[in-house]
């Protein structure tokens, strides 16, 4: 094979590989639509927006599932974001070098822990503890799920936010210190605002991670498809969209309405995560150009 | 302002008959997409077996001109390029040109020594291996020959298999020269090759170039006027993308004809 021909072949091959990412995204969307859209025909829309999810009777109200996901994700976010950002700031700005060298790999270990393993400990230890300590009717609640989800989402937030803080040019910090600010003031008034875009992306990615988690929530949130009402609902069982799919797909007849509705939930998950990602990416873009405009 | 002078060919002294024009640049215009460092209608001949120096203030287009000769500008964002560059009668700006073969005939040494992350030996033989040469003995001979020509053999012959990054700055730059010489080119382009080097290394490089010019066409962008004056058989003053003056070295530095050339040489600007 001549060298020129080989060059062309390689160039084509890598290009095809690159385009495969777009192709895959489209194929995934297409097949989800193909299996999920029939649900819109088989189940009237008012029913889908209904408040009862009872597939055995043919009632497919999605609201309890959506609200269940929202509740658990929101609670997890309230736990993960402060802890995650604070940890990221600690690692990037406060920790001495030796501590950093230990913490960063540890966060990576955290990120790699299988969620089913955390779910197991949730059932085995966390739920019973909460049941006893907080005198609940059951330990399998939205709150238990939120706790697990929080710690699952934290590593994502920490690593992306820490990268963003690291990327802030040294000159910013040195300038602030030279003007008489101490390290704390520098962090709050200079470094963190400068890394704002990246930290926001980190938070969005963390939320996405929590929202898309399946096994851990399936194992500890009690799987009761009821609409959460009031703050007490946090300590009641709920059902998330992800857990619904995982729990029920195994028992479903292929091609049945239930089957199609589960795929419809999958489409919803796909679209919501798409939206979260696009918002996260656009936030970074806007923040960066504003900073560039200020500096030039 | 440069357009007030007569066309540079007229200012040129007649060349001795033994030398021929190796490279002829004809009405070369080059514009980058961001407008910086472009070339405007440059015409110039670069003779064989001599050192031609391209000098002038920073950003004037000297590096751009150099990189046009081995088509390295293809890697950058060129919006427009017109004109011709004839090497031995072939226009290398023609799209049909075999650019890879061109780059083996026209070698380049860059301002910062960029040694590849390999051993000394592998660095020197890299170009030949790219060309498909696999014979160990031939490669070894080429390595020896090139390192000798770059005045580096004595210093590295006992550590050819050590990482090239372990050499000093001056040695690395001479290694880059050897790397180019291994391909046995016809033209050597050097873009401020001694800018980061200590005086001893600088002197070694300049001495090598004095030797090499007997066999190659050398085009050099110097990093100081003094180096230009030391090295130039012929000198071209490039200002704002235009060729202001071109004459044999001794002529130009002693009796510059154009006022701007004189200003620059005297240090009044730049």
């Amino acid at each position, binding site marked *: 094979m001549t060298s020129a021909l080989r060059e062309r072949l390689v160039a084509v091959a890598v290009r095809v590989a690159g385009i495969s990412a777009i192709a895959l995204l489209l194929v995934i969307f297409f097949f989800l639509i193909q299996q999920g859209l029939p649900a819109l025909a088989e189940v009237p829309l008012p029913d889908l927006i209904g408040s009862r999810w009872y597939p055995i009777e043919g009632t497919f109200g999605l609201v309890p599932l959506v609200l269940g996901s929202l509740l658990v994700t929101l609670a997890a976010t309230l736990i993960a974001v402060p802890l995650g950002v604070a940890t990221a700031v600690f*690692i990037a700005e406060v920790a001495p070098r030796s501590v950093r060298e230990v913490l960063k790999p*540890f966060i990576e270990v955290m990120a*790699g822990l299988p969620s089913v393993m955390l779910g197991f400990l949730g059932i085995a230890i966390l739920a019973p503890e909460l049941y006893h300590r907080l005198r609940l009717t059951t330990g399998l609640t939205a709150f238990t799920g939120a706790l697990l989800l929080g710690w699952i989402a934290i590593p994502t937030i920490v690593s992306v936010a820490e990268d963003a803080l690291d990327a802030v040019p040294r000159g910013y910090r040195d300038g602030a210190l030279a003007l008489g600010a*101490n390290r704390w003031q520098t962090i709050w008034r200079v470094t963190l605002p400068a890394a704002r875009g990246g930290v926001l992306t980190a938070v969005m990615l963390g939320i996405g991670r929590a929202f898309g988690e399946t096994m851990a929530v399936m194992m500890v949130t009690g799987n009761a498809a009821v609409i959460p009402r009031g703050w007490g609902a946090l300590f009641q069982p709920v059902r998330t969209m992800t857990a619904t799919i*995982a729990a029920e797909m195994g028992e479903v007849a292929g091609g049945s309405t239930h089957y199609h509705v589960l795929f419809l939930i999958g489409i919803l998950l796909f679209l919501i*995560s798409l939206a979260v990602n696009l918002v996260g990416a656009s936030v970074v873009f806007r923040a960066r150009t504003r900073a560039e405009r200020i500096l030039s | 302002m440069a357009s007030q002078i007569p066309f540079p060919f007229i200012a040129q002294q007649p060349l001795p008959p033994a030398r021929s024009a190796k490279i002829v640049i004809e009405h070369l215009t080059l514009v980058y997409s961001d407008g910086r460092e472009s070339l405007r209608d440059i015409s110039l001949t670069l003779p064989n077996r001599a050192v031609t120096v391209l000098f002038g203030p920073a950003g004037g287009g000297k590096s751009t001109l150099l990189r046009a000769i081995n088509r390295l500008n293809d890697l950058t964002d060129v919006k427009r390029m017109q004109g011709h560059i004839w090497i031995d009668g072939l226009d290398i700006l023609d799209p049909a040109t075999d650019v*890879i073969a061109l780059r083996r005939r026209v070698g380049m040494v*860059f301002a910062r020594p960029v040694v590849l992350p390999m051993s000394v030996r592998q660095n020197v033989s890299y170009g030949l291996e*790219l060309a498909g040469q696999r014979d160990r003995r031939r490669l070894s001979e080429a390595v020896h020959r090139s390192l000798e020509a770059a005045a580096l053999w004595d210093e590295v012959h006992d550590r050819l298999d050590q990482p090239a990054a372990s050499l000093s700055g001056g040695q690395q730059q001479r290694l880059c020269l050897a790397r180019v010489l291994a*391909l046995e080119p016809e033209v050597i382009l050097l873009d401020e090759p001694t800018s980061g080097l200590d005086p001893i290394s600088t002197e070694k490089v300049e001495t090598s170039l004095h030797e090499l010019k007997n066999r190659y066409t050398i085009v050099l962008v110097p990093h100081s006027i003094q180096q230009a004056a030391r090295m130039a058989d012929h000198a071209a003053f490039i200002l704002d993308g235009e060729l202001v003056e071109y004459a044999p070295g001794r002529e130009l530095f002693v009796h510059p004809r154009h006022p701007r050339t004189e200003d620059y040489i005297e240090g009044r600007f730049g």
Partner: protein
Amino acid sequence: MNARRQRQWTQRAGFGLLTLATIVTTLPILLIVLLILQRGLAAITPEFLLAFPSDGLRAGGIFPAILGTVLLTFTMTLVVAPLGIAAGIYLAHYAPDNRLTRSIRIAILNLAGIPSVVYGLFGLAFFVIFFRMGTSILAGALTLAIMTLPVVITTTEEAVRSVPNSFHVVSVSLGGTDWQSVRRILLPQGLPGILTGVILGVERAAGETAPILFTAAAVYLPHLPTSPLDPTMALPYHLYVVSTQIPGMPAGVQYGTAAVLLILVLLMNIIATVIRSRARARRRW
């Protein structure tokens, strides 16, 4: 208290808060890891690792689950590594700065954010049903491959980009082609980063349950899979089953399974970290 002393106190309090947050973040995880190892290691006997489960999974060993995870991740790597590395090289070295390239980047970002259970749904519709693979190792591995693709592409691109562009320029100036730069300089120099990315992708895939729930996993199989079209047991799914689906399950089996999974994951993490730090130490640019 003067302003300066007040600022010092604010700083001390602030740093204290940050330290506390970090401890709250990391300490529970450390305890979890230690707890699983403490309660699980005792259960890990050679029999546990090498025997089949018996008595409704309550006794015996978990060998088929371990083997299943190995088969799944190995097959997945065969698919995702060439594709992902090629795409990463494309983005780092070949792709022009145009709308197509931006679209590819957006697509990768979105692929990375899709919940794993949605990948499971897609695998079910696409591989199991449409391509008629049935519940099989092949379907599961391909599903895992698609899920892992964004990670491999991104880390490969980063690794190749981190190699100084000046090497490529030098190579070109000596008469080299694009591919020669990739083959002789960019790939070898970027290899540690690429390897790290692949290993971390494998680590994640080994621990994921949702993608294999409907595509490959079986609760119990009396014999080992003999072809890629057979279903298989798998470690993460096995852990799920023994911790939720079977009454009277001894805690030893549960913690033992969890420990094996944990050790597998930690091992891969250590290997990736070692590769990365050794490469950084030996870097010559």
